């Protein structure tokens, strides 16, 4: 796109800046739109599993439900508790939302369709997703109320625990791919399984790591069955208890943008991103972005399915799973995979 703006007689630097800005705005808007649609899907899937209709009043099939909800929260009054620390109270949802959008900068939707194709893309995502905890912790503290504070404590411990095992899973993927660049990781998966199946998912050494990654992604986004930060029976609504109106909506949007990000990471790291599932020529006529969206949607469906099916974990079980099961397991697999790659001469 930089060349397109250069053709208007701009210097390279300014053309690049404008092109990047246009990319950022496009992707932000698209992510926001998909978040709205995905909330609808979530509620529909949940409704179907519970044998009820789900949203079906606003618009055809209830498709405009999320937009109606958005309009509603927009028109509500923002209430700031008098004992709250005002600045941080308002900053927390903004941070959650911004961080959730910022990570999308390095997600390739198709070959070359990416805002910033940096060579430390995966590390960037790890860095940005580790910031997500600040929104929760700051809101919990600034609310000056006990339930949000408990929730913040839980969130901090939970997210840090699962980030460690996510880190090791990413190391395994990077060992196979040989690069931190997201597009490079996707291209490394081309024909990975038996020469014609695209995706690390089908590699027996990486499949257990996929399972660890998927479950850690549930915990990282505080999604059921790991939604202890907003366990209604214990903590009212957790860190969001004191929030209303747009501040609440920003948390909501940020949360779903994060869930979508984790789904697209599953797609990019294990299912071959924009590549079709198998290397058959007719499948390449379908545009890559369609494959990417289909796979991401599939993972989102899994997230909803799990939400509707599994009961919430106890907190000590959550910690045990993170530190005593996933961490040793992913460490062993790092050793195993690097040993396998050394033995097969992958690094020569």
């Amino acid at each position, binding site marked *: 796109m930089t060349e397109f703006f250069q053709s208007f007689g701009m210097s390279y630097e300014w053309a690049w800046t404008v092109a990047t800005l246009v990319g950022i705005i496009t992707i932000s808007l698209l992510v926001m739109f998909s978040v709205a649609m995905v909330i609808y899907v979530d509620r529909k899937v949940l409704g179907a599993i519970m044998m009820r209709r789900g949203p079906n009043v606003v618009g055809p099939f209830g498709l405009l439900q999320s937009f109606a909800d958005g309009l509603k929260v927009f028109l509500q009054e923002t209430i700031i508790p008098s004992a709250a620390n005002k600045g*941080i109270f308002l900053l927390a949802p903004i941070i959650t939302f911004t961080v959730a959008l910022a990570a999308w900068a390095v997600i390739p939707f198709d070959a070359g369709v990416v805002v910033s194709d940096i060579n*430390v893309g995966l590390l960037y995502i*790890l860095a940005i997703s*580790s910031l997500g905890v*600040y929104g929760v*912790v*700051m809101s919990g503290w600034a609310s000056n109320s006990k339930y949000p504070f408990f929730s913040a404590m839980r969130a901090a411990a939970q997210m*840090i625990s699962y*980030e460690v095992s996510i880190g090791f899973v990413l190391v395994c993927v990077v060992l196979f791919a040989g690069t*931190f660049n997201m597009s490079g990781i996707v291209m490394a998966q081309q024909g990975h399984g038996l020469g014609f199946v695209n995706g690390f998912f089908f590699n027996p050494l990486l499949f257990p790591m996929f399972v660890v990654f998927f479950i850690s992604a549930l915990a990282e986004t505080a999604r059921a069955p790991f939604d202890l930060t907003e366990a209604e029976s214990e903590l009212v609504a957790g860190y969001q208890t004191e929030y209303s109106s747009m501040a609440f909506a920003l948390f909501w949007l940020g949360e779903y943008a994060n869930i979508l990000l984790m789904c697209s990471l599953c797609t990019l790291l294990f299912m071959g991103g924009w590549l079709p599932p198998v290397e058959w020529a007719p499948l390449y006529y379908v545009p890559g972005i369609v494959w990417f969206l289909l796979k991401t949607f599939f993972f989102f469906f899994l997230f909803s399915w799990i939400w509707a099916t599994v009961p919430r974990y106890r907190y000590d079980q959550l910690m045990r799973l993170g530190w005593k099961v996933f961490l040793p397991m992913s460490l062993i697999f790092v050793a195993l995979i690097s040993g396998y790659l050394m033995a097969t001469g992958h690094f020569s």
Partner: protein
Amino acid sequence: MIQTLAFYLFAGLVIASAVMVIMSRNPVHSVLWLILAFFNAAGLMVLVGAEFIAMLLVIVYVGAVAVLFLFVVMMLDIDFAAMRAGFIKNFPLGIAVALILLAELILGLGAYNAGGLELATADGAAAQRVGQSNIEAIGVLLYGRYIFLFEVAGIILLVAMIGAIVLTFQPPKPGARGRQDIGKQIARRPEDATVLKNPETGQGIEL
């Protein structure tokens, strides 16, 4: 042009937020300013082309260390007036540390500018490293030339970790309820745990 603007933005913000870390009255605000300072320092690293270091700075310091700081500071019950008194008392010490750091920086820069120092020239292969990304370059140095130092650092960390575990380990008190056996909990079936009884009206039931 844009690089220059970005440099002054990041550098100015680092200094401003570092000042705010010391000046703000509320320790939680201090930690948040510190996080902003780390973040902008990472921005500066990106500008000099050390993107790997920048990401590590964010992952390690912002994502882990500062979360723990915030975690601890948030739970402290702090007397803000006492904190202010401490600021005046510790001011000379702080100035002394700052002056030492400044002197060391000037000395280091002077030594570098005087020439004769070649940075990152392990095995004299600096030229070969031009085309590499900085992850590869660091990897080659860290796991090649500095492998023994790296392992020593690893062992020190391991010893520190064992030390922390030993210090905080509390053996279960005699008579206290034992630890939970997860395997046993999972293996328990409803048939073992519940019985269905159908008592006659007006009659008791014996389990």
